[in-house]
């Protein structure tokens, strides 16, 4: 069974969808403000990604590592190392595929774009008894998933 809850018949996604993700954040920000955007991300994390949370709850950090390995393998242009240790899963994002693609296409990146990883990540992780801390951003970062 794939570690991903929703699977496609093609191995990697179409990078132009990053343009739509960035545009969606900009639209929510414009219509509903920053609180609205944070609510959108939180609802995505707790509702759309609920199947991921269920697997993390059952499988712990091993399930977290399996998910992110499969996730970044399907994101075009990602350069990410997923390192599991006894007390955490570290995502060492050397090249963020979304920021890379948006820059390559000259798109104005929503200033709080990187915040979505923290908010969605925590919304997914909290019900599984986990938390995420994010250092860096703007094209490369380190995300640490640990038990609360």
């Amino acid at each position, binding site marked *: 069974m794939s570690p991903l809850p*929703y699977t496609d018949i093609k191995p990697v*996604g*179409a990078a132009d*969808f990053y343009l739509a993700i960035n*545009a*969606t954040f900009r*639209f929510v920000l414009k*219509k509903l403000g920053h609180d609205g955007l944070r609510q959108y991300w939180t609802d995505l994390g707790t509702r759309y990604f609920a199947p991921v949370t269920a697997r993390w709850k059952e499988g712990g950090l091993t399930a977290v590592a399996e998910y992110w390995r499969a996730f970044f393998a399907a994101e075009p242009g990602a350069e990410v190392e997923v390192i599991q240790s006894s007390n955490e899963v570290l995502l060492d994002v050397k090249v963020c595929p979304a920021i890379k693609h948006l820059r390559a296409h000259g798109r104005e990146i929503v200033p709080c774009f990187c915040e979505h990883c923290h908010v*969605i990540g925590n919304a997914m992780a909290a019900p599984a008894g986990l938390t995420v801390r994010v250092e860096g951003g703007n094209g490369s970062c380190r995300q640490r998933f640990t038990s609360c």
Partner: protein
Amino acid sequence: MLGCYDFCGHYEWTFEWFRQQGGEPLVRQYWDEAIHQDSQRHAAALIAAKGIEGMKEYWGHTLADEGAGYHCTATDAVYRIDMHECPSKGFLIRNGLHQYHDYCDHCMGWIGPLLKKSGWVVDHEHNHCGQCWWELRRANDPTPPSQPGKHDVRLRADWKGPTPHDTYSRANHPDDKTVS
């Protein structure tokens, strides 16, 4: 991180989230402002500048990237797409994802206003099962949609399908449809 691999899943989920926040008008604003005018502004620029040649350039590349099963034909007057396996609707069906009441409306939601701005109208029909056809003509061209021909999705045995069809005639708005 929100990824592009399952984009169609969270995109469709987002339609319903917007509907709950601001009703159908907010969903339509999203398709027009965020997708047509922001995300897909490169498509708008290509089609405004090159007409049918721009359509060939845009859809030839994006449909292939998305893994669609489709066939495109063009003359000097009309650009036609026969979508036999819509990659996004197919993704939703295969994964059992259904939050918003009519995912297929999103295509007309952003393509309709985009084409209107450049002086084009749309004849279109979809069956909500991942098959549809499109004919794009200049707004001042009164030619009716073509009869079924080679590669035509309407000739498929499963075209009629179990769900109602939405049909658009010389339209530019997602709500300018008849349901049959």
